[in-house]
């Protein structure tokens, strides 16, 4: 089984990053790390590969930089990576990203596509579903558990009140939540081998895509304004004079939570 895992390199969340004041796009430093949510997807892929023969291919879009984030995923045990790095992709929104990733996955011919539910920098949370639509394969989303069946894949889909059991044949796409598995640490050997693993660096034209259909022009959106999240207001302190609990109940009633 050939498994494609969507991974994204993002600026290290521990280091503050800048936005371009005109375009509002993230200014991406050369040192980027693997998005933490993608570690779960890579782990799921590796477990499926270990359970049955197969290959795990990472698919990523964005400035390659020094490929630190990609190498982190390769060090975990993925076999190869495909990264689409093209100046034409600047300003890509969710749909542009999905078009590019879907084209790259099609080129690889994967049986199963795995993605995190959303990236930690963009947080659109729609790319996996868009990829499945573009590839015309079923999307099994928000997997909190997974297992390979004889002919396909079965997941427990996280819902607000519990979970649904969903299954389908292959090819398919699953999006995984954090907590679906405990991602492994790369071994030191894995780290040393990561640099030797093949990485295909592609452009938009390599994928046969029209430059106007992707990137900023193809994303169908403009970021008009970015404002910081308002800081949280200080809470209300209730001094307990023996009647404090009554005041708390009153406030909870006002908030309509009891």
């Amino acid at each position, binding site marked *: 089984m050939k498994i494609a895992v969507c991974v994204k390199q993002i600026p290290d969340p521990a280091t503050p990053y800048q936005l371009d004041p005109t375009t509002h796009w993230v200014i991406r430093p050369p040192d980027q790390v693997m998005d933490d949510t993608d570690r779960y997807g890579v782990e799921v892929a590796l477990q499926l590969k270990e359970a049955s023969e197969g290959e795990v291919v990472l698919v990523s879009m964005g400035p390659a930089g020094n490929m630190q984030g990609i190498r982190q995923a390769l060090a975990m045990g993925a076999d190869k990576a495909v990264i689409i790095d093209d100046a034409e992709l600047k300003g890509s929104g969710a749909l542009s990203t999905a078009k590019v990733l879907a084209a790259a996955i099609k080129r690889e011919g994967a049986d199963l596509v795995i993605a995190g539910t959303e990236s930690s920098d963009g947080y659109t949370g729609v790319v996996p579903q868009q990829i499945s639509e573009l590839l015309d394969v079923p999307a099994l989303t928000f997997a909190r558990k997974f297992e390979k069946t004889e002919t396909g894949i079965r997941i427990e889909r996280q819902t607000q009140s519990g979970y649904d059991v969903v299954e389908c044949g292959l090819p398919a796409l699953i999006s995984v939540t954090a907590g679906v598995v405990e991602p492994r640490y790369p071994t030191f*050997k894995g780290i040393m081998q990561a640099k030797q693993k093949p990485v295909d660096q592609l452009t938009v034209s390599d994928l046969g895509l029209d430059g106007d259909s992707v990137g900023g022009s193809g994303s169908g959106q403009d970021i008009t304004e970015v404002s910081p999240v308002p800081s949280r207001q200080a809470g209300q302190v209730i001094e307990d004079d023996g009647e404090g609990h009554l005041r708390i109940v009153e406030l909870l009633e006002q908030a309509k939570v009891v």
Partner: protein
Amino acid sequence: MRNIYMTDELEEIRHQVETFVEREVVPNGDQWEEDGLIPRELLEKMGSLGMFSLRVPEARGGLGMGEIASVVFAEALATSTFAGFEITALVHTDLAMPHLLRSGTPEQHDRVLPAVMLGETIMALAITEPDAGSDVAGIRTSAVKDGDGYRLNGSKLYITNGVYGDLVVVAARTDPSERYGLSMFLVESDREGFAVSKKLDKHGWRSSDTAELTFTDCWIPQENLLGTEHRGFYEIMKNFQNERLILGAMAVGAAQKGIELALQWTQQRAAFGGTLYDKQTIRHRLAMHQAHVDAGRAALYHAAWLAENGVDATKEVSAMKAFTGEMVNDVLYDCLQFHGGMGYMRESPIERMVRDARILSIGGGATEVMLEEVAKRSML
């Protein structure tokens, strides 16, 4: 890239060790300090990830790396703030294991190395005695030839991993007529005549176990002799450089972490209409400490690079060890000071770090001994 001695792989190893430490060590370290013990499961986890194989030759399943890798590893471990944890791992990898790697026979490697690399066997190094510390030639523990082996008698003091370790590299006198007539032995902790006579209570490094060991007619088979008989003194001297690099890396790492904690504290602690960091006296003292940490790190990596390239770096390593061992104590003293009353509380990491750092100007060659090594090599 942190400095010219780093590679992408070393940078990634550093990153992974820091991540591991943040997730696996920091949340549990307080309990281990109380227990006086690092759980074996953690050490085995580190072993399974290859953390104990950096210096093991590739032909033996390791990474075949050198002193710079050890320094990167030690500095990254130091982000934990739990130096007792760090030293447990580092005595295994960089104080005891080098003797096995350098002097061990293929048979000895086959026999013990796989479990040592996996952390299933934890190693210790027993050189120091009640009457012999930095003056190694004063060792009295004796190993007398007895049949197809040796009979070991004597005691060893301040042995890290001595209480819970499994395999101890022991230095003993085999030639009483010769001042440097020492030999090294591999001694399994379950051998008859091997005893932990005391679990020592320490000022710092409290999660690390430290022992006084006694050997009473402890019989060691010939195949446990490590290296050439009577040449042990020179083996000890050789590895002193590596040990001092590691202690220097722990010092640089701890000082850097102390500054980080002090920056966090002083930038959020309100006082006199601003934060503590708004006070120039605090900003400048922290900035000067950072300059000292940077200087120590530069000396550390340079000395490691010299050693890795086969250059006799005794002078540079000794100078670096003297400098960083004192520097970390100066830096952490002020970092605690800037934490005010909180810094005096057992719950604050900086309080523990100050206690842990005290040994770094004593262990592995006290500052005074290190300065003598430098002075001897500076005479015109």
